[in-house]
C-alpha cells in the first residue's frame, strides 16, 4: 500500500530552486534512507513534507495515503499520521514535555473521533516509553528540549514517535550529533517503530545509522534530485568512496 507518493517535486526558497524534480514512493512496511551531501535538499524535502512556511512548491505532487498532502496544514499532516522528527528540535522553556506529549496525543485521538486518554492510562504509557528510551521521568516535567543535550533532544523526538505511532515517520538527521550510546538507544527506538503498516524515511548524512537501522532502500539526493537508488549496499559504497568520488562517478 502506498503511503507517500512524491512526483516530480520542485520547490524553492525565495528565488532559489532547491528541489528539482524529486520522485519517491514509500509503501507501508518499508524503511527508506535518503542520503546526500550538505545542501543537496534533504532538509528542504523534510520541511516541505512537514508543511513549514517559506517554501514554494513550483511543480509536482505529494500524496499521502492517496490524499493531496499540500492541501493539509502542518497539524493536519501530523494527525493524519505523517510525523517529522526534527534535525534541530526546538527548545520551548516553560512548556513542559508532558503537556506537549499529552496535547499531541489527544489531538490525534480527537481526529480519530476518540476522547482524551485517561490521565492515569496516559501516565502509565508514557512512563513505560520513557524507560525504553533510557530517559528519566524528570524529563517529562522539564521544558520541551530546554537545556537538553543533543542526544537528549533526539531521544525526545523518538519518544514522541513511539507515543504517537505515526503511519509515516520522517526522521531528519536524527543521528547527527549523537555519541554511540545515544545512537544505539535512538536506533532501538526506530527499530521498534518498524512495522508492516508503517513507513519510515531516514534522512541522514552518514552511513553509521544504517548499520543499526537497516533500510530496504537507499536514495542518493544531489542538487535537488534523487540521482541513484538502491539497497543498503549503496550506503556502504557511498561511505567507502566518499561523497565526492561517488557523486562524480554517478553524475
Amino acid at each position, binding site marked *: 500500500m502506498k503511503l507517500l507518493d512524491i512526483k516530480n517535486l520542485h520547490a524553492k526558497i525565495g528565488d532559489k530552486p532547491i528541489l528539482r524534480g524529486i520522485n519517491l514512493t514509500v509503501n507501508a512496511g518499508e524503511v527508506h534512507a535518503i542520503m546526500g551531501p550538505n545542501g543537496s535538499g534533504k532538509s528542504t524535502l523534510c520541511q516541505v513534507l*512537514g*508543511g*513549514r*512556511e517559506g517554501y514554494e512548491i513550483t511543480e509536482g505532487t505529494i500524496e499521502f495515503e492517496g490524499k493531496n498532502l499540500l492541501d493539509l*496544514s*502542518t*497539524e493536519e*499532516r*501530523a*494527525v493524519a499520521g505523517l*510525523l*517529522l522528527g*526534527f534535525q534541530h*528540535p*526546538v527548545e*520551548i*522553556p*516553560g*512548556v*513542559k514535555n*508532558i*503537556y*506537549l506529549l*499529552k*496535547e*499531541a496525543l489527544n*489531538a*490525534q485521538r480527537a*481526529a480519530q473521533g476518540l476522547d482524551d486518554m485517561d*490521565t492515569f492510562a496516559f*501516565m502509565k504509557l508514557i512512563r513505560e516509553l520513557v524507560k525504553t528510551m533510557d530517559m528519566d521521568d524528570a524529563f517529562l516535567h522539564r*521544558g*520541551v528540549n530546554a537545556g537538553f543535550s543533543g542526544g537528549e533532544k533526539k531521544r525526545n523526538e523518538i519518544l*514522541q514517535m513511539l507515543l*504517537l505511532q505515526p503511519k509515516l515517520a520522517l526522521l531528519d538527521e536524527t543521528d547527527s550529533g549523537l555519541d554511540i550510546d545515544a545512537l544505539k538507544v535512538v536506533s532501538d527506538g526506530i527499530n521498534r517503530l518498524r512495522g508492516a503498516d508503517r513507513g519510515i524515511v531516514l534522512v541522514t548524512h552518514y552511513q553509521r545509522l544504517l548499520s543499526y537501522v537497516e533500510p530496504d532502500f537507499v536514495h542518493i539526493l544531489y542538487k535537488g534530485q534523487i540521482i541513484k537508488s538502491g539497497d543498503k549496499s549503496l550506503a556502504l559504497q557511498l561511505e567507502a568512496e566518499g561523497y565526492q568520488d561517488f557523486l562524480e562517478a554517478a553524475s
Partner: protein
Amino acid sequence: MSRIAEKRAELPAWIADALPATAAAPNDIQSAAREQITQWGLPSLRDEEWRWTNLRNLSRQTLVPSAGSAVAEVPHPISAVLTDALVIEFVDGQLKTLPADLPTGLTLTSLEHASPEQRAAAFAPAATTPNDALLALNTASAQQGVVIEVAANTVLTRPIVLQWQDGVVPESFSQTRVSIQLGAHAQATVIESVLGMNQNLCWRNTVSVVTQAANSQLHHLSLGLDGDHHLLTDRTFVTLARDARYHSLNLQLAGQLIRREIDVNITDTGAHCDLFGLMMPRGKQVLDTHTRIIHNAPHTTSNEHYRTIADEAGRGIFKGRILVAQDAQKIAAFQDSRNLLLSDQAEIDTKPELEIYADDVKCSHGATIGRLDPEALYYLQSRGISFAKARGLLIVGFAQEIIDEAPLPALVDWLTKQVTRRLGGTTVAE
C-alpha cells in the same frame, strides 16, 4: 541664570479635602508629609519616575474617601487553595478581621491600635522628591492598616494572606499602610491578594514597609487577578540586614491601572533579594512596576526577572534600577526583562538602569521584546497541536517560568489555572 520653577498641577480638591488633620503616622511626620503633598500635587509625566505612567485619568475623577461601612462580599478565592492561611481582611481599605489563634511568635496589630514605636517603624520611609508624592499622600492620610511582627527564630508554616477587596463601594478611595517586621532567623510568607469588586472604579494608595533582621527570610507575593476597573498604587520598601533574604513575586493581571514600586535596600553583607514579576495587560490596562535595588554593602546579591505579556491595547511598563554603592564590592546583580507583544496596539516600555560606583561587581541585565517564536509554534503544530492551542501553550509557558517561583505547590497550580483562564485557554491537566 535664573531658573523658572515649573508650575505643578495642584492636588485635586477631592484629595486635598480628604487630608486629615492627624493620621496614624507620628504627628511631626504626618504634618511634614501633608505639607509635601499639598505642595507637590500628584506625580506628573514630568517627574522622572512617572514619565510613562499618566495619572491624569485619576486626577479627573471625584472619588470619595472610603468610610468603613462596606462589608466583605465574597469568600476570597485564595482561601479555598490555602486552607491553613491566616487571613487578614480589608474591604475598601478598612481592616475588617484579624485572624484568631495565632501561632506562637506572630503578632498582628491593627494600625489603629499600634504603639508609637510600631507607628514610627511603619512610617519610617520619608518622601524626598515629587516622585514620592504618593508616599507623602499615604503618610499624611493613612489611618488603616496592619502591623505584622514575626519574632526572632519563628518559622511560620502557615501563610499570611492579606486580602484586599477594593471597590465594594463604587468610586471610593483609600490609603493603607502595612508594616512587616521579621526578627532574626524568622521565616514567613505574606500573600497580598487584591480583588477589584463588581467592576467598580476605585483607588487604593498603599505603602508597605518590610524590615528584615539578620538571616530572616520573607516570601512576599502580590497577586492582582480579578477586576477590570480598579486603580492601585502600591509602594513597598524593604530593608535587609545581614544575610536576610527577600523573595518577591508580583503577578498583575487585573485592574485599570496598577502601579507598583518596590524599593529594596540591601544594607549588610550576605543579604539577597529575588524579584520576580509577571504583568499581563490587555484591553486598556496599564500595568506598571518600578523596582529599585540598592546594594549598600559588599557581598550582596540580587536576582530579578520580569515578564510582560501585552495583548489588545494593553500597556506594560517595567523599569528596574540597580544601584551599587561605593565600596560595595563583590556584588552580583542579575536582571532580565522579557516581553511578549501579542497585538499591534499593545505597548511595552522597559528600561534597566544600572548605577555602579564600585569596581569589583558582576552585574548583568537584558531586555527583549518580541512576538511568539514561530519556530516553537511550528514545532508544536508539527506534533498535531492546533495553532490556537500551540499559541496558548507558548503564552502560558512564557508565564509559567515566573509562576513557578510561587512558594507553595498548591499556589503554583492555582496561579497557573488563573493565568490559563485569563488567556481563554483550557488547562492542561497532568
